[in-house]
């Protein structure tokens, strides 16, 4: 009798023992389950920065198609993207709703430096992954104080430094004029640029002018900068003003060596409206593939991208730099989720995000690899300078390492 009881209990225990590991492998935090992963986002779909709304639209389309193909590890992505109108108090309200009411697993690609600054402390206090921010401000790479925040864009500060170093190397006696948007993004670039010039900054920068996003034109600023006699121009503007600047520089008959920030390097949404012929010789930086670049005509991911837009977002042009950017971020996100497997706790997601080893995002330029470590959350370690030849951006020099 006792033997049978013993055998029975041993059988039961061993059965339980077999069953346990299988359920112990699946770990979920709020927002994750067997069937879905909830991802939250705020994007300026209205207001002064509404042109960036394309990013969210493309990402929504990407996830929609991914779900049609089965999702990630069998789970569908429930992507909730809310409008914050580029107003930080609205961002706070929407993010609180996503985290506390909708209970998303993580936030992806929230756009805007002020918007993200407003929720920076909150996300880290609540221990919710604040991932792949759509801003290049330097402060997002701080794993020691803000372990739940990881940026995406290559650092504005470092990019500015890169241009400065290029000028020092190619044109050490240049007279530089700078046009910058009077906000966090513009000043970040400018500060990096000045740092790159080092001690020579004060002597080399002969003129600077700023503008507000609410200004109708920047004609007056260009006239001032030309009048300073500068022969090099660092153009820190967002797409609309970049197009205006490129055209105006040509109109006033000024022919400086023209550096353009990466934010506005899109052929389709900036250079074409400005006039491709006016953009010849422009120097900028690229890390994501351009939709209009002939090099990628037969590229698998570019073909997928164009098909996706046709099917799920026909109003978006494939030449729009925001579209390819959004696609790349979504691809990176999916990679992290794949790496996390069935352990969908927030902690594990961050752990995976902090351990990306030389991943080639299909939509990123070949050779531009994403790498992170627990002490360095900057995704891209190298930047590639490019020059515009009238049709496409051509590689200009070797990829430079940035810190």
């Amino acid at each position, binding site marked *: 009798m006792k033997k049978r009881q013993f055998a029975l209990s041993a059988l039961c225990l061993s059965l339980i023992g077999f069953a346990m590991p299988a359920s112990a492998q699946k770990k979920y935090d709020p927002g994750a389950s067997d069937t879905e992963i909830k991802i939250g986002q705020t994007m300026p779909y209205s207001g002064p920065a509404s042109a960036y709304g394309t990013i969210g639209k493309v990402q929504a389309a990407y996830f929609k198609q991914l779900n049609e193909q089965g999702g990630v590890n069998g789970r569908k992505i429930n992507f909730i993207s809310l409008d914050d109108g580029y107003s930080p*108090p609205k961002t706070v309200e929407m993010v609180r709703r996503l985290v506390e009411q909708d209970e998303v697993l993580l936030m992806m690609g929230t756009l805007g430096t002020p918007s993200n*600054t*407003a929720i920076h402390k909150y996300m880290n206090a609540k221990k919710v992954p604040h991932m792949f921010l759509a801003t290049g401000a330097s402060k997002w790479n701080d794993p020691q104080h803000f372990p739940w925040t990881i940026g995406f864009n290559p650092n504005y500060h470092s990019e500015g430094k890169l241009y400065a170093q290029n000028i020092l190397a190619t044109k050490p006696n240049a007279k530089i004029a700078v046009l910058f948007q009077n906000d966090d993004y513009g000043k970040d670039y400018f500060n990096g640029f000045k740092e790159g010039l080092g001690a020579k900054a004060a002597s080399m920068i002969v003129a600077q002018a700023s503008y507000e996003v609410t200004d109708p034109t920047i004609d007056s600023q260009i006239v001032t900068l030309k009048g300073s006699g500068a022969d090099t121009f660092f153009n820190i503007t967002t797409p609309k003003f970049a197009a205006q600047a490129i055209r105006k520089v040509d109109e006033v008959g000024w022919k400086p060596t023209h550096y353009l920030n990466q934010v506005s390097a899109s052929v389709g949404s900036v250079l074409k409206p400005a006039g491709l012929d006016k953009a010849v010789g422009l120097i900028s930086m690229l890390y994501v593939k351009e939709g209009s670049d002939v090099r990628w005509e037969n590229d698998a991911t570019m073909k997928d991208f164009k098909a996706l837009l046709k099917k799920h977002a026909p109003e978006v042009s494939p030449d729009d730099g925001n579209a390819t950017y959004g696609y790349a971020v979504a691809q990176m996100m999916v990679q992290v989720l794949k790496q996390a497997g069935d352990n969908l706790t927030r902690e594990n997601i961050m752990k995976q995000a902090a351990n990306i080893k030389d991943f080639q995002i299909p939509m990123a330029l070949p050779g531009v690899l994403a790498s992170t470590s627990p002490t360095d959350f900057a995704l891209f370690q190298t930047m590639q300078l490019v020059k515009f030849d009238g049709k496409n951006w051509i590689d200009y020099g070797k990829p430079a390492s940035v810190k």
Partner: protein
Amino acid sequence: MSNTSSLAPVATALPWIRLILGMGAACALPFFITNYHVFQASLVLCYAIALVGLNILIGYSGQISLGHGAFLAIGAYTTAVLMDKFDMPYWMTIPIAAAVCLAVGFLFGLPALRLEGHYLALATFALAVALPQLLKFKHLEFLTGGVQGIVIMKPESPFETLFGLKLNSDRWLYFFTLTVTVIMFVIGWNLIRGRIGRALIAIRDQPIAAASMGINTPLYKSLAFGVSAMFTGVAGALSAILVAFVAPDSFTVFLSITLMVGMVIGGVTSLPGALYGAIFIQFIPNIADQISKAAPWAIYGVMLILFMYAMPTGIAGALRLLGQKIRPHNA
């Protein structure tokens, strides 16, 4: 006539009963809803204070302002700077923000009152447009944080529980905001009922007669501006504490326009109207977003227009009309 006399005490007690019930509901609210909604409710109260201020200026004083967002900004930044740079406790910053805005509003009102109608609208509009630029000005950066703005520490609740109910940061701040709101509403109510209110209404309706009766028109008009700025400044200060962040981008021209819209929709010259208007501007954009993801602001615009058709005297006015229809007719 005689059968209504027995209802008379009820009739006079009715508004007080409504008030007490309302206050009771407001105090019980945070314990029945999520923290996120408590946060939203606190924001509604902030807006309500701002709209009372705007009401005093536009409704009772008959002037116009398209730039009150600027005073929200000044109040918010005063609080932010005091808390961040001078380590002042949050509750102490409120009266200071009020005083600063009173002064700035009064000083702005002095020259501005020479302008009327459209011109005053432009002047106030200009103030709202210019202020963000001033906040970003590099020589003031040491104080304002420039384009980066200022991050504030969100205050924690000093008590763990209240009558056995759990108090967290959101709920504590809600009660703090509620207290300030009640104080501001009482001040507003007294002002409107008192000498100043009567003087303002006189100036608004019959400016020449008022002047000939000895009312110092320029002084009262500037005072109205100052007082209205003070209310809005307090609202701004509270919102800074709630959101725990201020930046120039938070105070765009659209904010000023939203305040004015809220005031008209709620009901000009009506204190409860301020509350209705605040609820409108806080929640309708969210509702519009749910109705249409593609063009939510179009829905918002349509609702604005429909509200103006259906309720020309605002929500408060419509409710008042409704109340008159329901109440038994007195001879």
